[in-house]
């Protein structure tokens, strides 16, 4: 769904990687929630995610969904950040998918994720790129 309102309200998480830290058990939630799934706590302090992490698992999408047909093949990974938070992201700057591997160190970088035609909303967020590249 290419919704401008949705893109706007998700800026804090997409652009600034804002998460929430449970004041009871210190679990970090990304995206933030109203209740901590680990302890039931309902009070949180803001927390910015670290940008360094490693690949937990990955794939290369060869048959894309609507909206991503211009970005195929599309490498995607589940990344675990230095503080244990996991998130799904595209992997950027991949010249040869054969070089991707589980455990690969990555860094999150602010990138364009998708776009709604020539006149619609451009969606930005973070992609993972190989650390040190």
């Amino acid at each position, binding site marked *: 769904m290419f919704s401008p309102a949705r893109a706007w309200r998700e800026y804090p998480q997409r652009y600034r990687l804002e998460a929430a830290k449970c004041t009871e058990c210190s679990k970090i939630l990304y995206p933030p929630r109203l209740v901590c799934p680990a302890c039931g706590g309902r009070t949180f302090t803001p927390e910015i995610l670290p940008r360094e992490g490693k690949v937990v698992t990955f*794939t290369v999408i060869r048959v894309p*969904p609507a909206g991503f047909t211009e970005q195929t093949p599309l490498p995607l990974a*589940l990344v675990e950040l230095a503080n244990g938070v996991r998130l799904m992201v595209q992997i950027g700057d991949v010249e040869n998918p054969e070089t991707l591997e589980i455990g690969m160190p990555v860094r999150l970088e602010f990138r364009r994720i998708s776009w709604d035609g020539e006149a619609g909303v451009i969606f930005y967020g973070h992609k993972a790129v190989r650390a040190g590249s």
Partner: protein
Amino acid sequence: MRDVAVIGIGMTSFGELWETPLRSLWAEAALAALDNAGIDSVDLVTIGCMSSGLFTGQEHLASLLADELGMAGVPATRVESACASGGLAVRAGFAEVASGLCDTVLVTGVEKMTDVDGADATYALGTAADAEWEGFHGVTFPGLYAMLARIHMQKYGTTREQLARVAVKNHANGLLNPHAQYHLKVTVQDVVNSTLVADPLCLLDCSPVTDGAAALVLTTAERAREIAGDKPVVVITGSGMATDTVTLANRADLAELGAVKLAGERAYAMARRKPEDIHLVEVHDCFTIAEIMATEALGFFNPGFGGSAVEKGLTSLQGKIPVNTSGGLKSKGHPVGATGVAQVVEIVSQLRGEAGQRQVQGAKIGMAQNMGGSGGSSVVHILEVV
């Protein structure tokens, strides 16, 4: 709780049925089940359908379809749990009869998937993932299962060939099922050489896009015995449902399908059965890796041994525990909302001894396992001849 029996089964052939609209597919299956049961009125209709809105532009399905059958006035409920919608419709009907709210329920599942093109179908299916935190980045269902496959391969040494053997087995079974979408023998080489969809999964690791519908008639076991005379009665002895995190990012163990395990444990507990008691099982093989992981989660094999079990033939038609005698989602086809109901249709056919060339001799206890998304939900039923 009252005992609940299945007294009628029906399904359409599965396939790319371009000439048939959703409502006609559904009515064909519903009428077949009612005729099979020998009745013409019910207290309730339940409908499992994942996304008639995205696939056909039609919502408000329960009323539309009850009316299609000339049953306007009868209560009707649509339930949705992504690809487990059909299983959930079975459970909804089971609960109504078991509780005494209804005596007779028409349980149905339907999906019309070929009115949209491939990219839009991929998008519609992708909405079963977390749209904001997974879908936003372009992930697809093959992509999510590919990520699970890679974890399973790394942790347990599951091989590319073992994945392929699931497809080879299920296509062999599908050859014996007249309702199956594909009557196509495939080899390990065919699977591993087919087009890459999401590494390491190839086209022949994936269930297809399918149109189809399936239906059951449920009533009390007491009434079923009156109707059946001296014929066997098939009773639902166990029903289990469980959820898990929809996002893989929040999953406790990516090498295990937690919702399948929990739903299975709940069904086993209700039926007072254990894995060794089950004679055959239909599992949700939306991708080859899913069948391997489901057979482990249901306790048929220890974690990590699902792949070698397929390789050894333990899950073949003549194996220790035949898995997906119908051809599974892989060969029979996967009209997502219909799948969970069609699995029960297969189990009832087998328990009645009506499965023809793919009949498992002496089958008395069967299981059907349906799954939503990348394991975010699962519904398991155990059925027995009494």
